[in-house]
């Protein structure tokens, strides 16, 4: 795809400003109905949007065709138009938020620039719908990892509601094009996803009173208790955990990079690692791993060789799978945090008991997104509470990590509230 130049970005920005004036003049309910319809259509596997993604996303992102189909089907399972309306009510309806009805107004910014990252399609979908829901047109820069989805979203919106479609402009320009970047970042509100280094670089370019809503890199994990590791439960546990790992080739912030087995029984941990290996091998038959860039393949091979060597040094480290397998399970001998090369590489860490869990997760805490937990019986609630206190913005069962509810508080924030200015209208 050809890149936009500075002038193209400036022109796109001017167009959405014009379209934004019309957007703000429309009843919000009408706009929300259109956005809900977009979501409902996306949920249909035979819809134009889904067929378009089936066709072009594998080549553009490297994911296998099977992965795109299965990943989207699972991720959109609960993303209905009604669910979207419910999120709007939860976050913007003063009554639902405990304020006096009619006394607090949520107003979107004149324009919102959305800087996308990564290659997963559903975060892109929501990132574009959200500004529109609060009455703000969206100028969207695609990520280098997925130049396709944003355009499909824009087309879907235009198909349902052409006037609303005019409120989305999708641009692409090189990261080093400073002029284009400055124009792009001059919107009143900027939503930026990316590495922490990227966000640090952008922050000075979006000074107050502009609003910067930043989503940095996060990691997810799975924490299993004894009841998930018994001989009867393990056959259910492993496929679920393996699905969480395999979906989107472990490249999303909701993909678990590690499994913490909170059990003193060494044999149970070995069996878990072995079961995960079998489950990943099975999943490969149904959802083959996609293309891996050489940097990713090198990191994967290096981490595997490193574990092999540690295993050869007589430590309790074991590697499951061969060097040619498109997955790798490493049974670690401690909870020490190690490199996570992704692309279906998972480490199983032993944790002696629940008391040791906070220490085991200490280094991860500031970066935690989701935690899948299972097998803690009566203690499940307190483990979930602990994960929330450690920074997790989502706790769910294994097998559901890649299907967050539409209203998930991404990075602990609301979906719509960060994109709004709230005005409290006091009585005379």
């Amino acid at each position, binding site marked *: 795809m050809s890149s936009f130049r500075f002038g193209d970005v400036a022109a796109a920005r001017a167009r959405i400003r014009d379209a934004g004036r019309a957007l703000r003049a429309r009843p919000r309910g009408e706009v929300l109905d259109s956005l809900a319809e977009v979501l409902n259509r996306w949920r249909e596997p035979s819809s134009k949007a889904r067929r378009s993604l089936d066709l072009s996303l594998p080549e553009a992102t490297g994911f296998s065709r099977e992965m795109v189909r299965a990943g989207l089907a699972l991720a959109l399972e609960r993303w209905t138009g009604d669910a979207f309306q419910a999120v709007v009510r939860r976050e913007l309806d003063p009554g639902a938020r405990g304020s006096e009805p009619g006394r607090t107004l949520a107003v979107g910014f004149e324009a919102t620039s959305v800087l996308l990252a990564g290659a997963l399609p559903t975060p892109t979908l929501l990132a574009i719908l959200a500004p529109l829901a609060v009455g703000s047109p969206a100028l969207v820069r695609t990520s280098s990892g997925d130049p396709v989805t944003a355009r499909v979203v824009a087309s879907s919106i235009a198909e349902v509601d052409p006037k609303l479609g005019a409120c989305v402009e999708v641009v692409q320009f090189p990261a080093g094009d400073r002029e284009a970047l400055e124009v792009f970042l001059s919107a009143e509100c900027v939503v930026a996803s990316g590495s922490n280094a990227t966000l640090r670089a952008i922050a000075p370019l979006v000074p107050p009173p502009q609003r910067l809503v930043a989503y940095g890199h996060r*990691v997810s994990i799975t924490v299993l208790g004894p009841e998930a590791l018994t001989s009867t439960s393990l056959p259910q546990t492993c496929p679920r955990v393996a699905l969480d790992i395999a979906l989107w080739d472990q490249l999303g912030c909701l993909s678990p990079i590690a499994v913490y087995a909170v059990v003193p029984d060494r044999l149970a941990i070995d069996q878990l690692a072995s079961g995960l290996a079998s489950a990943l091998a099975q999943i490969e038959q149904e959802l083959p791993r996609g293309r891996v860039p050489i940097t*990713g393949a090198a990191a994967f*091979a290096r981490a595997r060789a490193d574990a092999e060597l540690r295993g*050869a040094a007589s430590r309790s480290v074991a590697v499951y799978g061969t060097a040619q397998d498109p997955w790798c399970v490493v049974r670690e001998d401690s909870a020490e945090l*190690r490199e996570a090369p992704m692309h279906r590489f998972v480490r199983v860490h032993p944790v002696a008991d629940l008391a040791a869990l906070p220490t085991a997760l200490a*280094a991860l805490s500031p970066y935690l997104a989701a935690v899948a937990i299972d097998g803690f019986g009566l203690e499940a609630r307190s483990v979930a509470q602990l994960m929330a206190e450690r920074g997790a913005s989502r706790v769910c069962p294994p097998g559901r990590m890649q299907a967050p509810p539409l209203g998930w508080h991404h990075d602990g924030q609301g979906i719509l509230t960060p994109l709004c200015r709230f005005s409290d209208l006091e009585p005379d």
Partner: protein
Amino acid sequence: MSDAARAALDAKVLAWMREPATLEWPQEEERFDQIARELFHFQFDHCPPYGRFCARQGRTPATVTTWRDVPAVPSGAFKELVLRSFAADEVVHVFRTSGTSARRRGELQLDTLALYEASVLPSFVLHLLPELVRGALPGPVPAVARPRLRILAPTPLEAPDSSLSHMFGVLLRALSLQDAIGPSGFDVAGGELRFESWLHALEEGMAHDAPFVLCGTAFAFVHALDELARRGVRLALPAGSRVLETGGFKGRTRELSREALYTLIEERLCVPPARIVNQYGMTELASQFHDSVLRFSGAPRRKLGPPWARVRLVDPTTGNEVPRGEVGVIVIHDLGNTGSVSAIETADLGRAIADGFEVIGREPGAEARGCSLAMDEMLAGAGSA
């Protein structure tokens, strides 16, 4: 094999390193292969973790029939394990990788420095001072033409575990003994660049029209060049001056591309890129690779090494060598590593160019697909890796 076998191996490699270097420096494939397989046999037997690591891959002295089959260990393994082929009580020196105290550092334990030191000199001379090669290592040179070495690094005394400082110390000592260089020295002390004395040394050399070989880490050069720029100073170093820069910027507050660094060097020191040599080496290796620009001026820039060290570029998934011209992971086989493991898989990507290679870098575009991971930050916080 026995200690006598190790001594014999060391003797063979040392003899090779001490042979007169020539600009052509023939590769001697058969000789390399023979020693590499003997060395693999020795290390397979004497470095137990490595032996088991190889055996699990089905690579044993019986099955490895060419040096290309010798299994490589990832360089990061030196942060986790002691990989040595001799007894613990025979350690005479330890080199450590750079890094902050919060992070685990790689460690190379040595029972002799002889090979390391013998490897340093010929490579340096051939790639930085090729005019000194007259079919043999440096011979008598007229005093006026003798270059001066200024080192932007701490002395070996101050940084005994730095292989880089040790290398520079060896070079200064050896080249001084051979009367091949003029007044030379180190310009970093107490962890800081001694800018005034460095500047004075340069100005004094300029007054005598004595060319310089300025050596140091890329980051140290940036620091010195920034200070020159701040003072508005531009030095016209004497003709024949040259630069050796090495290392990267990881963990530093300022990063520059190599091209930008070379532009700055030319601007502030009047040393053109054609006289700037990047050295590619690592703590875990005895030998180094250098840019070819001075050894073969006018030819394409590529990295060349001594004949006792070889590079393979491999596909990380298959482990097979990539077709010529394609990008692969850099694996180095260094016969100078007799006391540890001779085959090291680096974290770098490279591509073959003519008789050498270029280093592409570590993680180009690594973030393009993943939403996940700030691992460097997390691991730094965890005090590991």
